[in-house]
């Protein structure tokens, strides 16, 4: 390996920005980016002129951005040397990857908002689909079903998941703990439809085949939710410093009180975030609810009797069984999808606020 000395880089090359020794000016990356896009735009203009087809803006931008990466590296190598050039290259790659990841997200957001806005009205949130064919109708029944079933799933999963993670962190030693960890990992990988079939057949055993109730849907969801809760709370509990546990033990506090009053309050912010993320994970599940809870057009407040509609299943049925006029069904599907996204966003926002509220304070 050769060691690079800090000799002045050659600046004799014809570069517009080679004003300072060994340092590109601050505006250089932007200038190079604009230049790269301009070059690519020119090439695309020639191509579109030659072939007579329409101008491809997306392609021009993309190729321009691709062109920027070797360009910035080249200029930086010439002016600033290899170390800084590598830094700029990696910065460009990382930023590019971020922008690439943002494209589908932004595109999805724009699509859902524009298409969902058509039916995002008061009727939509005050009516169910009972006796509605064609236009009109609303999603009250689906919102009620989603909230009830997700809520019931949370009531089942949070205590089980939290206690499992407490067992794993505070009590679990040896084979049993390793077994539990392994099974939780396996559970994380269960396809959601398998969870739905499990819940369906479980209730079919006791209540006869063909039973579809909200609680069966909730059981299916909790099956998907428990491993996420266990995993995230386990991580959070492990972050609590052992010194705090020792401090409590040294005061003559029994172990269970130490866990309840020291370990949990210290990690409650992280646990809340994890729980909220697990809710966001299951609230959009379609397949298990389609099997276990079925679908219906009426509002059903009773988890234990009758089928229950949910937002994802509503979207699916509206899209899959389009009636007349089909546009009404598509509009309802998009508006319901928008509602679901908004609910998940609201939950995440609440989780943030709760986490901030509970977080240990370090004010002076």
């Amino acid at each position, binding site marked *: 390996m050769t060691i690079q000395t800090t000799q002045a880089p050659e600046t004799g090359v014809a570069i517009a920005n080679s004003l300072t020794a060994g340092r590109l000016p601050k505006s250089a990356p932007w200038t190079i980016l604009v230049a790269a896009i301009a070059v690519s735009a020119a090439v695309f203009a020639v191509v579109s002129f030659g072939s007579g087809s329409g101008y491809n803006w997306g392609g021009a931008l993309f190729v321009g951005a691709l062109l920027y990466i070797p360009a910035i590296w080249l200029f930086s190598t010439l002016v600033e040397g290899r170390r800084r050039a590598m830094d700029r290259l990696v910065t460009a790659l990382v930023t590019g990857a971020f922008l690439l990841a943002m494209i589908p997200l932004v595109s999805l957001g724009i699509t859902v908002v524009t298409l969902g806005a058509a039916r995002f009205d008061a009727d939509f949130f005050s009516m169910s689909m009972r006796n509605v064919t064609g236009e009109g109708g609303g999603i009250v029944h689906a919102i009620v079903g989603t909230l009830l079933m997700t809520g019931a799933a949370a009531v089942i999963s949070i205590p089980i998941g939290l206690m499992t993670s407490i067992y794993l962190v505070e009590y679990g030693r040896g084979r049993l703990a390793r077994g539990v960890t392994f099974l939780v990992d396996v559970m994380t990988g269960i396809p959601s439809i398998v969870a739905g079939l499990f819940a369906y057949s479980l209730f079919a055993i006791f209540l006869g085949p063909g039973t579809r109730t909200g609680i069966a849907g909730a059981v299916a969801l909790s099956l998907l939710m428990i491993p996420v809760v266990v995993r995230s709370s386990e991580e959070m509990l492990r972050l609590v410093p*052992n010194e705090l546990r*020792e401090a409590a*033990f040294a*005061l003559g506090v029994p172990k269970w009180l130490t866990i309840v009053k020291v370990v949990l309050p*210290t990690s409650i912010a992280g646990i809340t975030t994890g729980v909220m993320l697990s809710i966001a994970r299951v609230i959009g599940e379609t397949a298990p609810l389609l099997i276990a809870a079925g679908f219906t057009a009426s509002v059903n407040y009773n988890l234990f009797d009758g089928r229950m509609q949910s937002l994802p299943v509503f979207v699916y049925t509206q899209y899959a069984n389009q009636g007349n006029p089909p546009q009404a069904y598509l509009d309802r599907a998009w508006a319901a999808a928008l509602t679901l996204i908004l609910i998940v966003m609201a939950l995440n926002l609440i989780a943030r606020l709760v986490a901030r509220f509970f977080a*240990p304070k370090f004010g*002076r």
Partner: protein
Amino acid sequence: MSKRIEVRDLNVYYSKFLAVEGVNLAIEPRSVTAFIGPSGCGKSTFLRTLNRMHEVIPGARVEGEVLIDGNNLYDPDVDPVLVRRQVGMVFQRPNPFPTMSIKENVLAGVKLNNKRISKSDAEELVEKSLRGANLWNEVKDRLDRPGSGLSGGQQQRLCIARAIAVSPEVILMDEPCSALDPISTLAIEDLIEDLKQQYTIVIVTHNMQQASRVSDKTAFFNIAGTGKPGNLIEYDDTTTIFSNPSVQATEDYVSGRFG
């Protein structure tokens, strides 16, 4: 309020590894005893066996007897929680509970045990403990602020206040000043001098001047080599240990000519 500690033929193991071997010593009530010795010789391990805190570490176990006023800590029927209520502990790094205010930290021993305490009693206890820990004047105006906002030295004194608020008989200190500056160290040493009137204090320290300043008796621990168990080499009055020790290894260690 303070008790005599007697240790007989104590061996401490981490799983199969013998960490401390054959310790015999007696600690008198209302005195300060210092444990000195090189790192890894088992001082802290041994200190933890005096209130069964070593049991927090998986695989740690003890053979032998520790008697506090004649009661064996390692009797099978003894509840470690009750032991720790009598034998408090202050740790190397200050560890106030981050979710609690200064006041709640002092009351932690009471509150965490679900004991009911009237508001006036609680305020009295907070003031008494903070005064006892020499911290009252610095924090009396901000008792409801988080304990983690204090300086390191103040946090350590807060931890001492928390330990004495449950009125233990014995206070164990595991290098309480090693993370502190000289001024905070001095404050804590003064505090130890005061606490000695009421409590039996055992302190582990790497600072030989500190041992000679604060303690009445000193125990020197040493280790023959890596993988070998730590031993109690010599236990005597502090003045004797530092001026006229009977074992050559002790003299080498306290005068800095070890190794």
